[in-house]
């Protein structure tokens, strides 16, 4: 395992591996998103209380879940980069930020659009919504910190520290619906063995969650592959790759 990590830490191996992995994430994403959308938008029954409007959940929940998952990966990769000086970890952290920020934006906007007819308002300052908004600001601060330095090493260091400090927000988002009286409903996986959603509606949701996982995978791989080329532009192998194409 350790040997494998060390190998992957070499930019050339990293480039080749990402290149090979891209189709293994792209095609599952395409297949899952088609099945998930058809199942969720057409086959799944309407909700007994929310009617058709509940279908927004099929993008809201996966993107909200990914907004936290990507942040976790970003902070972990940043931490690994800080501690072991692995440049490829810095690359993973850097390219994850805009993807995670986009997922956060999707979660916030689809939630607001659902909230208007259901709650009666686009936005409330409850603990769940506020902590998710802070997550968006954390991503934006991370991105601007990363761009503020010319030296990629300093940039990675500063932004990774921010990302790790911001980790504290993740449990706050997750448990906000338990710790405080929020307008936002609790999790359907409150009792993990007995989700509070009917299976006919739950299956497409799980498929969409997997589709979004693969979506993050393919986007991160493509962006990481190109970021490596820029960073290693003075190596001989990059020249061979670019000129050979």
């Amino acid at each position, binding site marked *: 395992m350790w040997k494998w990590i060390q190998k992957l830490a070499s930019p050339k191996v990293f480039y080749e591996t990402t290149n090979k992995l891209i189709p293994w994430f792209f095609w599952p994403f395409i297949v899952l998103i088609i099945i998930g959308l058809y199942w969720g*938008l057409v086959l799944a029954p309407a909700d007994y209380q929310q*009617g*058709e*409007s509940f*279908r*927004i959940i099929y*993008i*809201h929940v996966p*993107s909200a879940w990914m907004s936290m998952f990507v942040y976790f990966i970003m902070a972990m990769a940043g931490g690994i980069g800080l501690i072991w000086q692995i440049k490829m970890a810095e690359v993973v952290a850097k390219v994850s930020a*805009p*993807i995670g920020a*986009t997922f956060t*934006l*999707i979660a916030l*906007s*689809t939630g607001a*659009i*659902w909230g*208007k*007819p259901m709650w009666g308002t686009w936005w409330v300052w409850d603990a769940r919504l506020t902590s998710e908004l802070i997550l968006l600001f954390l991503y934006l601060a991370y991105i601007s910190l990363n761009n503020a330095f010319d030296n990629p090493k300093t940039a990675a260091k500063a932004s990774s520290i921010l990302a790790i400090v911001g980790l504290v927000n993740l449990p706050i988002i997750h448990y906000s619906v338990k710790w405080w009286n929020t307008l936002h409903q609790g999790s359907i996986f409150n009792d993990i063995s007995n989700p509070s959603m009917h299976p006919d509606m739950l299956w497409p949701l799980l498929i969409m969650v997997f589709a979004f996982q693969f*979506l993050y995978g393919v*986007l991160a791989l*493509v*962006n990481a592959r*190109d970021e490596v*080329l*820029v960073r290693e*532009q003075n190596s001989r192998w*990059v*020249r061979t790759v*670019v*000129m050979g*194409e």
Partner: protein
Amino acid sequence: MTLAETLSFLPYGKYALYIWLSYGITFILIVGLFVRASINYKKIRSQLKNKYSREND
């Protein structure tokens, strides 16, 4: 007539506006990420190509 009522001829009736708006925003943002990646792909390769051919001269 409100916008939500105007669009209620679409699938999902009175929630058509909200559902299509949500899915539309999501679609645009995700396509945006792919477009950004593909622009980056071309830009980086053409920049590096230029750089290397200049060095060769």
